[in-house]
């Protein structure tokens, strides 16, 4: 058994998949609230990196996370098509994940789970719960709670330049 299986009794799951860069990621379908087309994004000045901005989901203001930043992937090029949005629920709060493309829903089982190869997990291996071998590609299972966690560092805007420098 892999190291990941010690965290969960079973890795049989149904995953919503999406692409980021050229990789396939998945989140547990139970955590997913809905999937949306690109939404106008309002940036939040002084926000920690990884926080992409705010979107309006039918009158609710959601925080949008840029997963590229979180997973250590290169930033989305400015001319890229509008990102898609996967809305997940974490601790009762709805959070929007910005992704490149939506895949589909796949059933995965313990049988084809394996430890993700190092080069694929990037600098943040703890965000990946495990990898599933699908036909011809590898599905990286994302730990949603960790992926949307923002360090609550004290941010002090308005410090004079001299102090920063």
């Amino acid at each position, binding site marked *: 058994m892999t190291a990941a299986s010690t965290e969960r009794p079973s890795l049989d799951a149904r995953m919503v998949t999406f692409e980021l860069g050229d990789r396939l990621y998945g989140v547990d379908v139970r955590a997913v609230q809905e999937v949306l087309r690109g939404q*106008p994004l*309002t*940036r*939040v*000045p*002084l*926000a920690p990196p990884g*926080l992409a*901005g*705010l*979107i*309006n989901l*039918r*009158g*609710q*203001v*959601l*925080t949008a996370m840029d997963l590229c930043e979180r997973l250590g992937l290169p930033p989305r090029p400015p001319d890229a098509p509008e990102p898609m949005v996967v809305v997940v629920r974490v601790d009762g*709060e709805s*959070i929007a994940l910005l992704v490149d493309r939506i895949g589909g829903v796949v059933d995965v089982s313990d049988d084809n789970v394996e430890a993700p190869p190092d080069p694929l997990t990037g600098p943040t291996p703890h965000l990946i719960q495990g990898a599933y071998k699908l036909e011809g590609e590898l599905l990286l299972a994302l730990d949603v709670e960790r992926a949307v966690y*923002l360090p*609550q*560092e*004290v*941010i*002090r*805007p*308005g410090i004079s330049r001299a102090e920063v420098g």
Partner: protein
Amino acid sequence: MHDTGLDDIVQEFLIESHENLDQLDRDLVALEQQPESRELLASVFRTIHTIKGTSGFLAFHKLEAVTHVGENLLARLRDGQLSLTSAITDVLLSMVDTVRELLASIEADGTEGDADVEELVVAIAAVLEGVPRTSTRPEVEVEVEVEVIEPFPAESRRTVADASIRVDVDLLDALMRLVGELVLTRNQIAREAGQAPGSELAGAAQRLNLIAGELHEGVMKTRMQPIDHLWSKLPRVVRDLGATCGKEVNLTMVGRETELDRSLLESVKDPLTHLVRNAVDHGLEAPAARVAAGKPAAGTLTLRAYHEGGQVVVEVCDDGAGIDPARIAGAAVAQGLCTRAAADAMSRADQLQLIFAPGFSTATTLTHVSGRGVGMDVVRTNIEAIGGTIEIESVLGRGTTCRLRIPLTLAIVPALTVECAGDRYAVPQVNVLELVALDADRALVEFEEVNGAPVHLLRGVPIPLVNLAEFLQIGSGRPDGQLLFAVLQAEGRRFGLVIDRVLNTEEIVVKPLSPRLKTLGTFSGATILGDGRVALILDVQSLARRALPAEPLERTGAQAAEETQEAPDRVSLLLATVGGGRRVAIPLSSVTRIEHLPATAVEVVGSREVVHYRGAILPLLRLGGDSAAPSELPSDVLSVVVYTAGARSVVIAVDEIVDIVEADAEVPGDLDVRGAILAADARFYELEDAL
């Protein structure tokens, strides 16, 4: 709703008691099944205890007598000194029945009726002493008595308990959120419909507008509670405090029925209690000192609440010694809150404001009442946190007034939307004093650097400027060199917030930010604008704290002194052109809004023109007479100034706002107003071109 003329306290007591009695019935029955349950006994005890307490307070003596002995019995049971027998259950149940009857009688005619409770009291007392119950009277008679008291149900009248229901506050919050959504959607539809006047859509939008407005009001009302909920606890506080401090206090309350949002009521509780304590402890003098000063020995503390301009005003006034600004300044200097020179240079009003400085205290000794370092600064912080303001006025020897202004609700607030670096932000209107635009030439000239921070001299008063783009670390700046800033007030300080553009004033629906953004502290929430995009709401208090230097007052001594001498004789005037290029000056203190209204908002009633404005109908005044001069605005838009004097408002049509100027209070010149329409105390100055 009811014709019995019961006052609110009794109403509430009845509702509460009815609910409690239902619970009591269930508990007593359950108690028979498990006579040893302390929990059930404690619950029953609490219920009876509550009824006893309130009935004593409301002087329902029979009710009090019955519940009093009942409570004793229950206390014995609860403490295990007696154990529950069926005889005891019987008297308890008949006690509940009697309480019910008394309550019914109170509800019917406000009195306890002529029911005789002596028998029951004796019966309970007998059980208490362990005497067998048979000795008093046969049970049958009790039954008979019950029937006599029972009010005959001649008509099916709703009882107080049936006419109202308790609703979970969360549900009300959810409703309020939905109404907020509806208001936004309505705004969007109204915008669409505005492009096709006369269409079916426009008619439907009009109806939607009405319904949404009424719904909004209705849901707001469900959340409103009279301020008396807070005040009702204060007489006791004042009494106890007066006794502790050796002062006699008469407490007067005016406007108990003034309502405000329930959540705000909670937030106002502590600041208000603090102000009341302060007034009794510091404000009022000891009786001997009062008599020596020629005042009655008992001080008067007046609480006043009223609605004004979409806000609730709460005043705490005492007729005590008043606050000596010099003493406040002295204490502030002693505590190192400002320098002696700065304090001496301040106007008396500004010295008084030092009372709000963090850490300020005048108490020389610690009492348990006040002087523990938690002072007026905390009061102000709490009030500003809910979008309110606080001001203090004091006349030496005559008394002090603290005035809180609190928004009616937190969910929907008026705000100014501005643009900075291509993003839109909302600034709560309550913080906005005025907007200033300087063209490139003046922007360069009327600028000073004080300690490295940019300062603008606004009508001679230095105002520190904070560049929003720089503060948020986003690139910006207007390429044309114009300088535009909003003068904001928070934390007792004024500053100019430099922005790129001013977009609109609108009612915004406040959405909470994700907890993960709370630590930023710069934004108090978010809102959704008419086009569906999210805009952040600036936290002006936080901005003032972080972006401004720590010195409480920026002005230099000389300037402040100069201002002190000038201030009383000068008045701010709004200059506007009216028909025929004439200029009028309107005292700025009376101007509540400057607006652009659609021409369709004007209606003719009789021989007068009126305007529908914010749910009210106000008379429209055209100072230019009939010779309407060509305006820069398209003819279907009306530029107006909303002028308020006392409780009355009038809308004045103007061609163009020219400037705001300072002038001597006694401006010579003729009053040129078509005074017949105007409220008598409205004064206008028509200034000649000299200005």
